């Protein structure tokens, strides 16, 4: 897998760091996949998925969201879902310009799933969406994660700093964004899903405290603009990337969905070539090195971060 | 875990080297050999001083000593060893127990063997006759057809000795003395006792006797460069023991020096349909109990034709009987753990544990058991019994690693002897006699005395008609007349 660093720009001119990974040789109709890690995860954290997709012939674009951890502009303190959505659009447009094709598939982790639905609702060239632990009710999930329903509070009740998954987040931008765009609401998800005619799938762990299988099933029933598939994982926890043995099983299924062309529920995981143990390990360490050296380069350059 | 794990200090035994029949006690550096958790043996370091003293010994010391004097001296030594009152013998028995973990009975048996071997003067002469062609050949020119032949010692023979089988040391030394060589006995770390006891018993009898002065006993670790040099400069090397030890000795042996390898061998038994199960089992029990199977002639596997159960019952009883006749060597914790591991390995490979005595064990290996190389034999009286429909099946398990094939009943051997020989075994004996090397027999395919002498021939003069010719040998004339084909018939 060859990975190169590219820059994409949001409509507001902010830089989104993108890694493009491609097979040495790829078909002219190789699937183009744009992949977004979830909240508090970097694009290098989804390296094994990228490796697997590339190994099966896809061209993969990954990005770190703006106002988030990672290599893009801004700090996670100012995180908003809109920022994530804008970053995704920037990455999609970069992929289209670079590959000179319109059709793009999305792979989204966790909270990025909401952004993926919102983008696809307005972009008919999104061919399919695959999520892992994809959030469907942002409001409820954030309430679960933070322990309180901050989004329903009055602005003056908000704390100055909200610790979320090990990061200090200023709740105000998130709160404001949620009020203005309803982007975290379940209703918005249903609206988006109704507008998406492309196939949509979500792998959800049965024991995930943040994403409920039932909730997802309901959302897919209500928002049945096209083929909808829920894959239930008999595991616990939300951070499925932690368990490499589970990841291998999931990867196989996800890859078959993300690169296939027929109906998702007919996809054949047996057809997927799995990366070797060593390749996953090496990619992981190599990407950490790449991430660190890009961070160092950004520091010396003087990042135009806000 | 036994008491020694709790840090009880092992008993210490301080031993000298013997250089040219003299005790060598180094004041300074020492070597410490730990024989398992039984005891610590302290020996002088193998220094340049020791080596130069050994190098200074006269390699022809025994050359002109008549064989009868050598044998007579050995006989006197042996008579001492035959006496249960002999203090050196008593010390040897105590040390075999302390250092090697021998039972008192087995140690006594070893001491008896030393006595028997040293006093077997008639056998020694027979041995010279058989192996060298004449018992006079080391003393004088002996007529050998158209030549007179005299055998001389090669000079200095270094013996790389094994641990655990004291009689090998005795035999190795006797062969070298019988051929008038001077010997450097390089002891194994597991048995520094036997060689020293022999040398000291010579000194005690007569410190100035040339036979006494022909014996050196030392120890050096495998990687010792001085030791390696000593081997390189020897005229003959006799190497016993593990494949690695023998291989190393061979690599160090000089190009013109004689090399006599007694590398690792195993032995097996064939029990035919007509065998008396009681007698056959007792024979196996003996051959597998002596030296706790550490010897090359120790039976490890038994191929049994016909009814298995009566043989197994008798073998179990026989091994138990030998546990009281020759109680097994005391093993350290580590040796026991190792033994148990190897036995477990036999089970994993397909052996079925039939019975265990206090030490001995019997495994039955069905035909599909994967007891192939490199499965390691557990030894310590572990007998692997392989049932066969016909003894011919045993041939598939015979290769050049087999030294002795012990057979019962005796008459079945006629049928298999040639096949066994083709498969490179070196001895075929009756079951129960593995350790008895009969006069005239061979050792690992050799007549070892021949390797310890150099022959000089004094050949007939021209006036003596060569065999096949009826006139004196005048080569010039023959060439001139082009009559070579005519004169040789």
């Amino acid at each position, binding site marked *: 897998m060859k990975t190169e660093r590219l820059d994409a720009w949001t409509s507001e001119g902010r830089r989104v760091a993108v890694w493009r990974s491609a097979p040495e040789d790829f078909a002219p109709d190789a699937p183009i996949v744009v992949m977004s890690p979830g909240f508090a995860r970097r694009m290098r954290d989804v390296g094994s998925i990228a490796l697997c997709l590339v190994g099966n012939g896809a061209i993969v674009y990954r990005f770190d969201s703006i106002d988030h951890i990672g290599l893009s502009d801004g700090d996670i303190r100012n995180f908003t879902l809109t920022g994530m959505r804008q970053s995704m659009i920037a990455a999609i447009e970069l992929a289209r310009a670079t590959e000179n094709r319109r059709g793009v598939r999305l792979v989204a982790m966790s909270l990025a799933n909401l952004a993926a639905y919102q983008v696809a609702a307005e972009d008919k060239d999104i061919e399919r969406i695959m999520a892992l632990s994809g959030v469907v009710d942002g409001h409820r999930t954030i309430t679960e994660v933070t322990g309180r329903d901050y989004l329903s509070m009055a602005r003056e009740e908000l704390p100055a700093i909200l610790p979320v998954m090990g990061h200090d987040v200023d709740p105000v931008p998130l709160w404001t964004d949620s009020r203005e765009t309803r982007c975290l609401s379940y209703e918005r998800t249903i609206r988006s899903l109704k507008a998406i005619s492309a196939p949509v799938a979500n792998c959800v762990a049965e024991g995930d405290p943040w994403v409920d299988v039932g909730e997802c099933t309901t959302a897919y029933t209500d928002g049945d603009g096209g083929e909808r598939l829920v*894959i*239930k994982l008999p595991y616990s*926890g939300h951070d499925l990337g932690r368990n490499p043995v589970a990841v291998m099983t999931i990867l196989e299924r996800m890859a078959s969905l993300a690169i296939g062309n027929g109906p998702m529920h007919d996809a054949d995981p047996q057809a997927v070539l799995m990366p070797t143990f060593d390749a996953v390990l090496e990619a992981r360490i190599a990407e950490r090195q790449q991430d660190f050296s890009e961070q160092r380069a950004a520091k010396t350059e003087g990042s135009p971060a806000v | 875990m036994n008491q020694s794990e709790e840090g009880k200090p092992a008993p210490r035994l301080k031993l000298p080297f013997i250089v040219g029949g003299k005790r060598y006690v180094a004041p300074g550096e020492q070597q410490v050999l730990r024989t398992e958790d039984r005891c610590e043996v302290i020996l002088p370091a193998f220094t340049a001083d020791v080596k130069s003293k050994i190098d200074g010994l006269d390699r022809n010391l025994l050359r002109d000593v008549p064989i009868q004097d050598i044998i007579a001296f050995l006989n006197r030594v042996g008579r001492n060893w035959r006496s249960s009152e002999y203090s050196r013998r008593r010390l040897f028995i105590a040390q075999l127990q302390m250092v090697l973990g021998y039972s008192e009975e087995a140690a006594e048996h070893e001491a008896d063997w030393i006595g028997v071997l040293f006093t077997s003067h008639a056998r020694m002469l027979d041995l010279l006759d058989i192996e060298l062609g004449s018992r006079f050949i080391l003393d004088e020119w002996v007529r050998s057809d158209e030549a007179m032949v005299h055998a001389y010692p090669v000079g200095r023979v270094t013996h790389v000795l094994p641990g655990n*089988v004291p009689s090998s040391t005795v035999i190795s030394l006797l062969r070298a003395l019988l051929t008038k060589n001077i010997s450097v006995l390089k002891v194994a770390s597991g048995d520094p006792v036997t060689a020293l006891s022999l040398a000291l018993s010579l000194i005690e009898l007569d410190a100035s006797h040339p036979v006494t002065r022909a014996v050196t006993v030392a120890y050096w670790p495998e990687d010792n460069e001085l030791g390696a040099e000593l081997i390189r400069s020897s005229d003959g090397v006799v190497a016993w023991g593990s494949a690695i030890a023998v291989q190393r000795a061979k690599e160090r042996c000089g190009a013109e020096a004689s090399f006599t390898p007694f590398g690792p061998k195993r032995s097996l038994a064939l029990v035919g349909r007509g065998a008396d199960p009681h007698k056959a089992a007792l024979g196996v029990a003996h051959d597998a109990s002596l030296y706790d*199977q550490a010897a090359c002639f120790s039976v490890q596997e038994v191929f049994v034709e016909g009814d298995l159960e009566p043989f197994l019952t008798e073998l179990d009883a026989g091994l138990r009987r030998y546990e009281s006749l020759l109680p097994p060597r005391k093993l350290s*914790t580590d040796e026991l753990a190792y033994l148990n591991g190897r036995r477990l*390995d036999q089970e994993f490979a397909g052996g079925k544990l039939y019975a265990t005595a206090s030490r001995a064990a019997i495994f039955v290996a069905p035909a599909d058991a994967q007891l*192939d190389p*490199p*499965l390691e034999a557990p030894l310590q009286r572990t007998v692997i019994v392989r049932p066969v429909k016909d003894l011919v099946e045993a041939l598939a398990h015979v290769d050049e690693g087999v030294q002795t094939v012990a057979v019962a009943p005796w008459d079945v051997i006629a049928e298999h002897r040639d096949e066994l020989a083709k498969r490179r075994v070196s001895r075929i004996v009756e079951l129960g006699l593995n350790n008895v090397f009969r006069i005239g027999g061979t050792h690992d395919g050799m007549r070892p005395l021949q390797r310890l002498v150099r022959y000089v021939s004094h050949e007939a003069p021209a006036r003596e008609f060569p065999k096949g010719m009826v006139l004196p040998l005048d080569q010039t004339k023959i060439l001139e007349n082009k009559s070579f084909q005519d004169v040789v018939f």
Partner: protein
Amino acid sequence: MFTQNLAPVSLIDSVVFGDHDWLENSVEWQADLRLELVREAFAHHLASCPQYASFADRKGVTAEHIQTVDDLVRIPQLPTSVFKRQRVLSVPPDEIVMNFTSSGTSGTKSVIHRDGVTLHRLCGMMRSDSPLFGNYLDGMDETNSTIINLGPSRSDSGNVWFSYVMSLLEQMAPMQSYVVGSDLLLKEAVDDVRRSLVEMDKVFVVGPPFLVSDFCQEVIGAGAPLEGGDSLFVFTGGGWKNRESERMDRHEFNKVVGEALSLADPLQIRDVFNQVELNTLLVECEHHRKHVPPWVHAFTRDPVTFEPLPDGEAGVLCFSDATAKSYPCFLVGDDVARVLSGVCDCGRPGVTMELVRRLRGSSHAGCAETIRSTVQAD
């Protein structure tokens, strides 16, 4: 709307990879979990490894015999020598990813064939927040820590298990390896540690004790003190190999290393136990006991009878490790140790192990051939 189900993850994986801190549970709870995990592994190997199944059959043990924690000792175990001579697999051969051997230069080596799952599980336990490490690695992450490896890099470690395992620590933080070919670049390693101590919160020096000892000699020889303080950590593993004669006892080692590297606390030095046949790291706690996670059953056997010994009695160390999928990791080991169940002096409940010494191998020096050197013609 379609719904599909993926195969469940096994219990062993959820324990190895999960967030669960078993140390928060009682000794009995851990024992029950151990029973379940090891029994499951036993059933797997019985079903998947014909050689092992037939061995167990000869031993007369079936999965049904393993009903209580006390029954775990009945699981038939293999001497490590089995792996020196034959391939013992519980997965199809094409699933094997790597074949590992022990380090060292002499003798026949064990070869352990590992598949992806087995290796993933090993990797999965090597994370700084795993209870396996107690709290030795608390606060370590890939941005604030660096590892100086007195060993070869993973790509250079070949099939040598110990080197490979140490190199896997790179998952936790960036690592520089200083054994190149057969040379240890001591000066470079020392320089790197000095540099890293300035830039990083935590610096780990990992390697076998004899190389750590060399490292300390290099520091002392350089004349310039190295201020390890509370930032430098030393993680040792493996034995003294062919430098056995230089072996220091643990107390002395800690003193020498602590002084040479000016460590604030000798507890910054920890040792890990592992061998090529074992798929788990047993990491030392503050009280120098090696904690045994619930997926490993450790006990000792009487060297004379090979019968299991009660808690606390020194004997031949034996393991049953449930994380090994590709080979039956039910081992009679090569060490003398004590295994204790209860609450360790460090306060953590569970099973701990204390090494006494390595067993000496064969001392056979007779002339009996013990390993057939020739192979049959047919």
